[in-house]
């Protein structure tokens, strides 16, 4: 139990998990934001949801991924972001398993909407399970190293410098 407690409050481990998960979600979001129609078509390929719902998801989901990516990366609302990434990844994983079960030969639509790459498979399920584990870890974790939230709460000099820099950039 002590080892688990140590892992959950290990600042470096939490920082590593945050940055890795944040980068994955950042890359995943960018392509979808620029072409929501293709992303909706990717969702349609799974044949789970009607097109109208796919379009709504394609409109909102990439932005949710982007926000979670930034939140994890900068350490703001880490637990909330981890809850959302966990929920999204669980949904994606069920969709992939369902498509595999029905014998669909489709591309994942995860990082690019190019239909010729990233075909779904059990490797993708494994990747998603790994990311779900990271999300659950962050959900229970307490590491605050290099997080804006921590800087804000501890009123450190760095946070003040960041704020000053941001306000200078905005006013300039």
């Amino acid at each position: 139990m002590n080892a688990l407690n140590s892992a959950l409050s290990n600042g470096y481990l939490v920082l590593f998990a945050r940055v890795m998960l944040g980068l994955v979600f950042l890359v995943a979001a960018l392509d979808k934001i620029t072409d929501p129609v293709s992303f909706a078509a990717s969702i349609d390929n799974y044949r789970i949801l009607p097109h109208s719902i796919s379009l709504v998801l394609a409109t909102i989901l990439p932005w949710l991924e982007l926000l979670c990516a930034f939140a994890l990366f900068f350490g703001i609302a880490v637990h909330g972001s981890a809850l959302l990434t966990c929920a999204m990844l669980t949904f994606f994983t069920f969709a992939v398993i369902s498509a595999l079960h029905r014998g669909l030969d489709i591309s994942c639509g995860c990082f690019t909407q190019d239909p010729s790459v990233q075909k779904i498979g059990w490797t993708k399920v494994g990747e998603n399970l790994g990311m779900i584990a990271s999300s659950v870890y962050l959900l229970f974790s307490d590491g605050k190293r290099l997080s804006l939230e921590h800087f804000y709460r501890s009123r450190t000099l760095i946070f003040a410098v960041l704020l000053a820099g941001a306000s200078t950039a905005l006013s300039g």
Partner: protein
Amino acid sequence: MPDSSSLPNNVGRREPISWQGPIVDRRGNPFHETVLEAAVLFIVACILGLGYNAITGRGVFGFAPAAPVQLSGSVEPAPTFITFEEAVKFYTSGKAVFVDARNEYDYKVGHIKGAINIPLKEFDNRRSLLGTYRKDSLLIAYCDGVECGSSIDLGRRLAGAGFNHVKIFFGGWNEWRMHDQPIEQ
């Protein structure tokens, strides 16, 4: 040695982990705070997503069936929906080109006889297939059927590419096959 009962609960020992989930987070971040953070992120994502797509005319704001499509300064009618009977009539007339919006795999498994395949996601790569058709050709877009909307988006893209007689057969492949109409595999 002070009496242990006089010490605060958390002095000198770690709190045990509760495996009842984060309902009562042992580290001072109660579950309701986590849910609140997630809810705020979700609401902001909705605002950003809907706002961005409303401004750029994409996503849920990308298709307006009643709105005309602006083409080279002239106003052309938006793609219209046709029934199965109308699709058969156009097919037997031999003047219509059926355009399959499904992916290549589904197209190879079976498609309306004579249809060409332009998957929605590969529209830009495959649009050269349309080069041999005149802009006033009658193009009929279809996909699987009512559970799939690729035909709508494909119809819109065809109209946007300058074709001014585009129709959408929304019953699609499923309805066509159900009525034993001519197919190719």
